[in-house]
């Protein structure tokens, strides 16, 4: 799977309350959640994002609550993947479970600038910065995670397991 888009840069410790403020959690409608993604940092964020764009952030991305609404909002805002120096644990799990590709890669997170054109190979973890002609490598996803993703998420896995 090739993911390609413009980079949107964020700092360290981007928490789930800014990804999707709790005042909108009285719904699970993906479109409505997406329309409020990141609005407390940048009111215009979802209007400026083009389909396929990539979030590039610092340490501990997605810290805070366990709300799955956070990766849902990001994914449905048109973001194809998130690259960060590190991810908060529950956000990491939630993203995999619902099919938002995420890559832990300090090198890429530090070197990519706002607006750079980025191409990611989801299988190998290779991240190309087309604007700067650089490339970085994220740790490949462990086999069990690849299996969950190849099945289309955790629920498909559960469906197959519960038939056994």
């Amino acid at each position: 799977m090739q993911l390609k888009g413009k980079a949107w840069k964020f700092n360290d410790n981007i928490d789930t309350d800014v990804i999707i403020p709790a005042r909108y959690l009285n719904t699970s409608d993906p479109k409505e959640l997406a329309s409020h993604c990141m609005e407390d940092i940048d009111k215009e964020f979802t209007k400026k994002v083009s389909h396929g764009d990539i979030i590039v952030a610092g340490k501990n991305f997605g810290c805070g609550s366990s709300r799955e609404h956070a990766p849902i909002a990001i994914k449905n805002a048109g973001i194809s993947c998130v690259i960060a120096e590190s991810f908060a644990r529950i956000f990491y799990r939630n993203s995999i479970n619902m099919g938002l590709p995420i890559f832990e890669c300090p090198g890429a997170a530090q070197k990519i600038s706002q607006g750079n054109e980025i191409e990611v190979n989801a299988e190998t973890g290779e991240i190309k910065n087309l604007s700067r002609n650089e490339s970085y490598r994220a740790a490949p996803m462990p086999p069990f995670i690849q299996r969950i993703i190849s099945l289309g998420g955790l629920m498909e896995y559960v469906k197959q397991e519960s038939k056994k």
Partner: protein
Amino acid sequence: MSQTISEKILAAHSGNKEVSPGQLIEAKIDLCFGNDITAPIAIENFRKAGLSKVFDRERVLLIPDHFTPNKDIKTATQTKMMREFAQEQGLSNYFEVGRCGIEHVFIHEQGLALPGMLIVGADSHTCTYGALGSFSTGVGSTDLAAAMALGRLWFKVPESMLFTYNGKLQAFVSGKDLILCTIGEIGVDGALYKAMEFQGSTIKGLSMDSRFSMCNMAIEAGGKAGIIAPDAKTLAYVKSVSKNPCKVYKSDKGAQYSEKIDFDASRIEPQVAFPSLPENSKPVSEASGIEINQAVIGSCTNGRMEDMRIAAKIMKGKKLNPSVRCVILPGTQKIYLDCIKEGIAEIFVRAGCSFSTPTCGPCLGGHMGILAEGEKAISTTNRNFVGRMGHPKSEVYLSNPAVAAASAIAGKIVHPKELK
């Protein structure tokens, strides 16, 4: 091989003799639950996958607590979905508004969480039950759906960090201050993916309520779990809430830790975490004089009986500063009732506080105490992120209940000992 308490619990639940950090295991769950924000997505996923039955109708808990009593039609729709699912599945542990409280105060009060258990909840503060010596961690809604169906989940065995606290606590210092100070020391990602194990003479001296507050905030350092090995105090507590047997695990001497950090607890002052991260904790003396518009006392961190008593002791016979609103939310219906019986409710109401039914409410900017642009609050809750309690340009300072109560009277942040 020597094992930590966390490793022993994970090994016992995955059919392994022992496990080591980094190992991927599939483990049996003793208890799983969700709330009015997370359960609806789990139920949708459960249905979409064509699943028909939960793995055990006594081990799946549904607790509406975040936006309840239903704050609007959308919330009412979400809680209705929970109620209908509970009926359809015959869940014995669905709890209606007015018969429960904030999940992480209610679940241990009801004796549903016990030492030695492996617990997952679709809420990040599920780490609270580590105070009982269980391994307990927050997950998302899809994980909850999987746990509800299979009664098991995959885990990566975390490394453990050992935090040791020795020394006698100063007046007005509680478990909340120990954990705020610890998060300040290691940062909001200082324990990322790790189990935070707390021990030492100070921990032995802490009440169970204070221990719950500590483990509750392990997530604010990125921790997968906070855990305290059971002692006589734990077992006495468990006996008072449950007749069921439980299993006590303790770390072996020589167990491996990725890091060991020691604190001289006698030097820790009451803490205040400045906006907008829990790691911005400082001694209250450095926050002294900051004017506030609101104080919030409650939440899964500090909505327990000890917290209510501490706040009441400070507020007794006093009035709030005229420019401050104070919202007090007891953690459960039982605590609410005990506040009435002990005369605490009257102290709060006479002081000019809003004292009402349990809910997470203002902690996450849901309802029952939202901040306007430019307003500042002192709060016993767990997060002070941008916009957490309302307007993105409002600010939250985190503290223990004594500091919050004293500040509400003074109109500005003060050390409780300075309250006249």
